[in-house]
């Protein structure tokens, strides 16, 4: 009991340090930018937009792409956005309520996990529009979703992969068996089999977005069982699978971020998500007053998916990929995913 005062001060110090270090949510207005020429944002009624993130902006993945989106909107549309990092599940509703109360015009929530909270809080603040990234549904009048048709990315990855396997056996790793991830892996498989029906794809889930060692070990197990190419849709876990492919001298396909330079020679090319583009589309719609309370999904046709070519891809392969992309743009290929399958 001698040290009771000590105790109090220490706990205070630890808490302060923890929150300073970015553990607790905090809002930071982004540096004000010069309004871009031609942008219709008169100073007196600049829109109040905030971006709510489930993790830190330096996660080298999902949240970092949202931060890039914020920068893109600032640069191309001259609209500044605020952002809040590392908002935990338990705080979703109170955070929405907070910004609704403050009269924000547009609230971005980065991930489908925010949808239920948006659905619950949205109706209470009709003047605020809640936009949930990757949500496939909306709620009238003011909760919308915007996302990437990830299966289209998986499909192109599968086509490219099928042209690069000699053992006719490939591994596909997903984070969690959410419909969107299952759909990506199924599309990968369907595309590969469309190229060569003899190809076998092993699909596995690691139940994590960041357990990089599990990603590596899973890919190693697949390679040891005969796969000569791995594909992974699970953020940071993908870095682990690429590392495994490099160790074993087989191939990998980069996914979500441009990953060619992570392991040159191993990564045969990357299929990338242009997540920042989603923010630009949404903010543009907002400025034009065209936001709708529905789930909007974008694909190759909207420029939110892209290919980062690496050396070693033949012109023939490129031509096949370009054709596949064109078919997806023209909606000639159907989503092979069957829910609950």
């Amino acid at each position: 009991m001698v040290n009771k005062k000590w105790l109090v001060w220490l706990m205070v110090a630890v808490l302060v340090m923890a929150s300073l270090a970015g553990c607790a949510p905090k809002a930071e207005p982004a540096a004000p930018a010069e309004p871009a020429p031609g942008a219709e944002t008169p100073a007196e009624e600049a829109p109040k937009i905030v971006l709510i993130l489930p993790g830190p902006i330096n996660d080298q993945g999902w949240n970092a792409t949202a931060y890039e989106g914020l920068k893109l909107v600032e640069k191309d549309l001259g609209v500044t956005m605020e952002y809040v990092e590392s908002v935990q599940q338990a705080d979703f509703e109170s955070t929405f309520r907070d910004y609704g109360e403050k009269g924000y015009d547009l609230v971005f929530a980065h991930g489908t996990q925010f949808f239920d909270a948006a659905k619950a809080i949205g109706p209470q603040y009709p003047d605020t529009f809640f936009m949930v990234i990757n949500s496939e549904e909306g709620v009238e009048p003011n909760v919308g979703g915007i996302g990437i048709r990830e299966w289209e990315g998986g499909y192109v990855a599968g086509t490219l992969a099928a042209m690069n396997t000699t053992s006719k056996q490939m591994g596909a790793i997903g984070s969690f068996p959410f419909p969107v991830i299952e759909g990506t892996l199924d599309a990968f498989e369907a595309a590969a089999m469309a190229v060569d029906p003899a190809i076998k794809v092993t699909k596995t889930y690691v139940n994590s977005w960041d357990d990089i060692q599990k990603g590596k070990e899973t890919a190693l197990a697949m390679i040891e069982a005969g796969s000569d190419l791995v594909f992974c849709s699970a953020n940071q876990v993908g870095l682990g699978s690429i590392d495994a492919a490099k160790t074993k001298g087989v191939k990998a396909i980069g996914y979500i971020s441009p990953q060619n330079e992570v392991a040159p020679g191993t990564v045969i090319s990357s299929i990338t998500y242009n997540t920042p583009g989603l923010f630009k589309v949404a903010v543009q719609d907002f400025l034009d007053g065209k936001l709708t309370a529905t789930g909007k999904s974008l694909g190759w046709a909207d420029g939110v998916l892209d290919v980062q070519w690496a050396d070693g891809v033949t012109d023939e392969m490129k031509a096949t990929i370009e054709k596949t992309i064109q078919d997806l743009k023209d909606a000639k290929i159907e989503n092979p995913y069957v829910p609950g399958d």
Partner: protein
Amino acid sequence: MNDIMNAAFFVALLSAALRLSVPILFAALGGMFSERSGVVNIGLEGIMLTGAFAGVVGSYFTGSQWLGALVAMLSGIALAALFALITVKVQINQIVSGIAINLLAVGLTSFFFRALFGITTTPITVNAFSPVSLPGLSTLPFVGEVLFSQTALVYIAFLLVPVSWFILYKTSWGLSIRTVGEHPTAADTVGIPVNRVRTLCVLASGALAGLGGAFLSLGQFNMFVDNMISGRGFIAVAAVIFGRWNPKGILIASLIFGVADALQIRLQTAGIGIPYQFLLMFPYLLTVVALTGIVGKTVAPKALGKAYAK
């Protein structure tokens, strides 16, 4: 499916199990010293994360993975010093303090990563450990490849098991540590500085857990990723109990966790009919079994979790 149960399969399985058990082994040996002296260190997870991060920073700025590992140990010691200050000197509840350390580590690593490297979407890579084949031994059939072509940190981890056993049971330091954990008043009576011994043991746990973290970031990879420890520190806490607070038991416990994890990955990729959720649960199920004491009666150090004030 038909070819999964052959020799090559077992070699690969053992090799993976070894890699998966090393970070747990490092941290659990550290946790053992701390707990043997009477301090529960739940903060292993956070200390490992800090070690993983500091190892990459050290290697980035010095260009040497060995200095990186050293920096990882020092950072582990620094965080453990804070933990010792709170639990041994100020005598706050050890569990609560451990949780605080874990939360602090998540924030600190993230903050300093941003301060040093900015916001990137591609990982910063550094020099890392590569496998060393021990001459002669690595060419042995089957076991050679598994046991003797690993990174230096793997050999260090397994070497630490007999070393820890020797320190704990064959030296007067070890006797002091065990006495302090069993009966601090008696230890004090015969002149053992109880709180100094405890502080040193906590610092040792910090150094080892830091090295365990560096094994992930520098021994398995060459980069730091947010939250890359993913619960291995908590498994280590369970391994200490599962291993009944002695180095040999902890080695076996770590290997069991490693084999369980390696096996579930392989069964899942082999596409056998068991639902994958059940397989993923496997290592954690073992943890629960360990903690409930089904595997024999576990006797904790008597003064575990109790602060000592004269």
